[in-house]
């Protein structure tokens, strides 16, 4: 076979650049995700979010039940009841991001960790991503599983760790997110693989998320999603967290 000449390479590069230039913008990819998962109107109907499911670390034989709530004004609560390890809870209310577990006790989060948790509390975030992120940039394409994905770099407002989101070119659905989580224990690279999208109240939700971090793998399965309002008491600080917040003068 004849080797391609330098000119051919040049032409290929120009052709690829032209194609890339004509590709969708980051905004268009994010808008398409909203569209294929239910449309802006469906997201606007979300007044609250109650999600139940299960978590499992198959290799270690660890499993548990999960429940999470999101409400207006950046309020959230999540609990994982793990067999043999007890309950792990975290939440955001009035600007206080907290965590509590039977293993390590209660604590108030600060810095990047707090900012991340508050960002995660934003209801219908995909339709309102501009409230959480400074900018979105298309970084090219990459194979993700058997599909090809657009790679979008989302930079949080306030300078948090950027997140790389991968959207399936064919379906428009989010297939993967990678980022570095800032945790109390240190920086933790994390990869989340989303699949098995199912419709709940007019919105498509990935019901299976495989999380990989620190060499461990666990999966979260969503069993139900309700988008009705969530009673305010679901977000109330537990008594010991409240006492700790008062003691440490945590941001209210």
């Amino acid at each position, binding site marked *: 076979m004849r080797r391609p000449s330098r000119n051919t390479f040049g032409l290929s590069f120009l052709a690829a650049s032209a194609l890339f230039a004509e590709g969708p913008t980051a905004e268009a990819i994010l808008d398409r995700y909203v569209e294929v998962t239910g449309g802006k109107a469906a997201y606007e109907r979300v007044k609250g979010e109650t999600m139940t499911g299960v978590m499992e670390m198959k290799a270690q034989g660890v499993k548990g039940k999960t429940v999470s709530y999101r409400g207006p004004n950046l309020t959230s609560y999540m609990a994982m009841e793990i067999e043999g390890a007890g309950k792990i809870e975290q939440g955001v209310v009035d600007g206080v991001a907290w965590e509590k*577990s039977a*293993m390590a006790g209660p604590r108030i989060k600060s810095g990047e960790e707090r900012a991340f948790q508050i960002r995660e509390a934003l209801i219908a975030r995909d339709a309102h991503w501009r409230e959480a992120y400074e900018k979105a940039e298309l970084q090219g394409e990459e194979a993700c599983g058997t599909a090809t994905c657009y790679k979008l770099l989302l930079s949080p407002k306030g300078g948090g760790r950027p997140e790389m989101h991968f959207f399936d070119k064919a379906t428009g659905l989010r297939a993967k997110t990678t980022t570095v989580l800032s945790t109390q224990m240190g920086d933790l*690279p994390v990869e989340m693989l989303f699949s098995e999208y199912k419709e709940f109240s007019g919105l498509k939700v990935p019901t299976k998320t495989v999380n990989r971090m620190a060499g461990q793998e666990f999966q979260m399965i969503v069993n139900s999603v309700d988008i009705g309002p969530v009673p305010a008491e679901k977000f109330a600080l537990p008594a010991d967290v409240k006492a700790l917040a008062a003691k440490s003068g945590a941001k209210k």
Partner: protein
Amino acid sequence: MRPLLVAALAANAFAQPSKETLASFEKVWSTVQERYWNPARLESIGWKKIHDDYRAKVERAPDDAAASRLMNEMLGLLGQSHFAVLAGGDDDAIDLMAVPAGDGSTGIDPVVVGESVLVMRVEPNSPALAAGVRPGWEIAKIGSSDIQELAKRVMNGKRALRQRTLLLRALVMARLAGVPGTPVTAVFLDGAGRKVVRAVNRAQPTGRVVRFGHMTQTLEFSARRAAPDIGQVRFNIFLDPPGLMGGIEKAVKSCIGTCKGFVIDVRGNPGGLAILASGIAGFFIDEPDKKLGTLYQPGVTLKLVVNPRVETYAGPLAILVDEASVSTSEILAGGLQDLKRARIFGTRTAGAALPSNVERLPNGDLFQYAVADYISEGGQTLEGRGVTPDQIVEINREALLKGADPVLGAAIKWIRAQTKP
């Protein structure tokens, strides 16, 4: 040649490990290859060549048990704790697993002193107490098992002293345990060297059976006053966070403002969930951002941060350890020692302080593998070294026979000295 012999030889020639065991071998090797935190060390010991050598040996192994032994031999080349296939191993490990399973308890807590196994403690309300078993007695026989002979063999083996001690204690405990309601007859030597035979019916464990992933254990937790003004907790495993931490919290709270000191007894405690060490430390440390140490994984560094509780105990804290204090026990003791928050009493700990996972292999065996290196806050690795107590106190038979606990006694004496005007 006789036909039977030929048949036996032929059977041996064609005997081989199952395909599940071969798959298990690959899983064991590749897990280490992928998860070991120091690739340079794997390179230096020739881990890839080790694969080829041991794969050939495993393929030629006469049966699955022999293949499992080879896997443990291969893991032994890493020279670190918390790497084991929990179904094979050496003869003693197999022996340990061959003892009839059951969580029925006699209430005898053994301790290895020299080449003898002594009764260190007899649990309150236990069958052993009812049968008149006394601390300080030497355990000579359990059922048909000659403990004196076992002790000689294990204690004169090739392992490091602390590993021998740990193994012997485990072997004795396995012989004492069994199905609840079943009897066990033990022969003891009392303080005067006289043979004493006692038949004990194993009772249901007094603790809670707890399960986390593939681990199932009975949590024995006790909270009491070591003296009227000194709190004490003792527990045999770091599992069941709601139960264990709830018990510790209650004990600590009852001591705030009333106790001159507090004692945590982790003698004989093999560890469990590493994060519980930080959780427990939070009851005794009031300053934020303190750490018990750091875990190093490939590409990830994780700090064992202590979260101060809403109410903490600020008085003198003593931690009791021995050679059978392993893993999370060592992280708790070593971490609080480095932070100068606790004084450690007893004998040097096991030196097996690596956090690990336990997974099931394709052939059904369990595989324990360390996932990180652990460096204490003082910059020391505890692996292979253990925690050296601030005050070394050996258990001795005379004290046990008098009903005394010299390690606890030393801790109480120190606490009293801290609170003198």
